[in-house]
């Protein structure tokens, strides 16, 4: 910070430290995930980490950049973990590897490496894979599926056949399908109360994974690793749209709480839209960015064909970031922005 002016405040912010804190903040969500699904997700995280480090090393070598400095900064591992958490936990190993390599090689290094990527790498990986392998990317394990450690590892390694019980639907998908099939005859409150896939206030089990992400995110905010604007605006955008439609027709639209704790909402709110590289950087910009990302995510997940819309919403808003940042630039101290 050689260009800053005194008085100086000492802040220990290195990329490595920030990334390490993000990884720690993911742990509550991961713990809930393990409780819900089993150790498969740990294996996925390991596969993703390994693939990310290999891809990073390869690209750093090709680009003639210092290997050790960038390999140990943790940014590749954060991307890898986000990819692994966004993908179905029993995906075959190569799907995770393809996703992670797409994130690291294409979305990160082809755009110039850490700090240069206009799109969130993990979301690029998700979008690329759900477009390429729609069937595999929607095979979420059905609830109550109890597989042993060896069985889970066998499925991920491709040694065991992929059983039918693995291709369950996410709570969001289940709701959308039930509403479509019911054709107006079924209503949301009954569905939420009767179907097994729904729990106390969102998807059974998944609501606690989301709560884990929420706790981790709040800790990151408390540690001042992230600011409140983007997550709050994301939650606000999603809840506002969900709330309006729910108030208008509670029979056909789920309540905002359900949407907040379903799918990738909270993972997206605290770990994706807060990305300092691909997200907006100004105070008002973060509010606009988060709000629109949340609103678009809601529109895509409720009216679109894909099970969740967070990835596409974030990527769409990543595109708008240069424009948002240009129009929300804070005035220099003591000056007024030209109108």
């Amino acid at each position: 910070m050689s260009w800053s002016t005194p008085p100086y405040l000492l802040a220990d912010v290195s990329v490595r430290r920030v990334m390490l804190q993000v990884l720690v903040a993911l742990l509550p969500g991961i713990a809930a995930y393990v409780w819900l699904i089993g150790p498969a997700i740990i294996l996925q995280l390991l596969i993703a980490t390994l693939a990310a480090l290999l891809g990073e090393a390869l690209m750093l070598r090709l680009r003639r950049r210092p290997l050790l400095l960038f390999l140990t900064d943790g940014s590749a591992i954060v991307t890898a973990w986000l990819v692994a958490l966004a993908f179905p936990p029993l995906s075959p190993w190569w799907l995770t590897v393809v996703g992670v390599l797409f994130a690291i090689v294409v979305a990160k290094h082809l755009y110039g490496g850490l700090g240069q990527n206009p799109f969130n790498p993990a979301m690029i990986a998700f979008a690329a894979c759900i477009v390429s392998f729609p069937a595999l990317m929607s095979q979420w394990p059905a609830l109550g599926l109890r597989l042993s450690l060896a069985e889970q590892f066998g499925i991920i390694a491709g040694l065991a056949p992929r059983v039918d019980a693995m291709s369950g639907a996410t709570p969001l998908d289940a709701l959308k399908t039930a509403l479509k099939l019911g054709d107006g005859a079924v209503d949301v409150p009954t569905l939420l109360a009767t179907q097994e896939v729904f729990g106390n206030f969102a998807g059974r089990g998944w609501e606690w994974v989301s709560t884990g992400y929420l706790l981790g995110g709040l800790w990151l905010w408390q540690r001042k690793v992230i600011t409140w604007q983007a997550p709050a605006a994301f939650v606000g955008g999603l809840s506002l749209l969900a709330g309006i439609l729910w108030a208008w027709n509670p029979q056909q639209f789920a309540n905002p709480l359900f949407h907040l704790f379903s799918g990738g909402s909270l993972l997206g709110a605290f770990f994706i839209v807060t990305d300092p590289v691909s997200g907006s950087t100004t105070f008002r910009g973060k509010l606009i960015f988060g709000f629109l990302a949340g609103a678009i995510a809601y529109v895509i997940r409720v009216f679109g064909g894909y099970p969740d819309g967070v990835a596409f919403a974030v990527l769409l808003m990543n595109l708008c970031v240069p424009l948002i940042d240009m129009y929300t630039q804070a005035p220099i101290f003591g000056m007024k922005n030209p109108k």
Partner: protein
Amino acid sequence: MIGRDEFIEIRDNGLWKQNTSLVQILGLCPLLAVTTNAVNGVMLSLATIIVMAVANLAVASLRNLIPHEIRIPVFILIVAALVTVVDLLFNAQLHELYLVLGIFIPLIVTNCIVLARVEAFANKNPPLQSVFDGVFMGVGMLWTLALLGGLRELLGGGTLFAGIDMVFPGLQPLQLLPGDYPGLLLAMLPPGAFILLGCLIAWKNWVEARAAARHSAQRSLPTPPAPLTDRV
């Protein structure tokens, strides 16, 4: 007539230096739409080559008679007449392929590669040179589209030359990857074409940068400026 150096220059411009897809980045619409396999790319390129060669010949022959102010409508009329001929030919001889290529054969009329060569080359050069220019520009497009199409179908489905039976009824496409290959669907969609085209452009620039570096090392001159990456 045409000199040897002139011929070589026209050939190299078409095949590499001014490659329509990799350097001029023209005609992206058919490029995205038909390169889902190598056969489609090659066949559309062949249609374009015929149109370009004859259009260049016609325009170069008539270039002194065409009033400058209305040259573009005249060019388009000439190209449209030729495309109609090619369109009917494909419909009659290669009907299945015609159904696959669909609108993209009539759209050769509006292909900016054709209009660009007619306007930039045939309008200013004698007929023989213009014919060569049309052919080599077309061949440059052909190998790029064939390569891109081959890459896309290999990544997307594990095959090579899918649909070749539509052109040569006896032949079968090659299945290069095992049958249970899941297929990277992205490669078959337009974004995949953009990403792979970007990779091909990067590859071309890399080859040229390496050649330039070797050249300057031999002459022990300072490194020449990096080649142009793209044209807007």
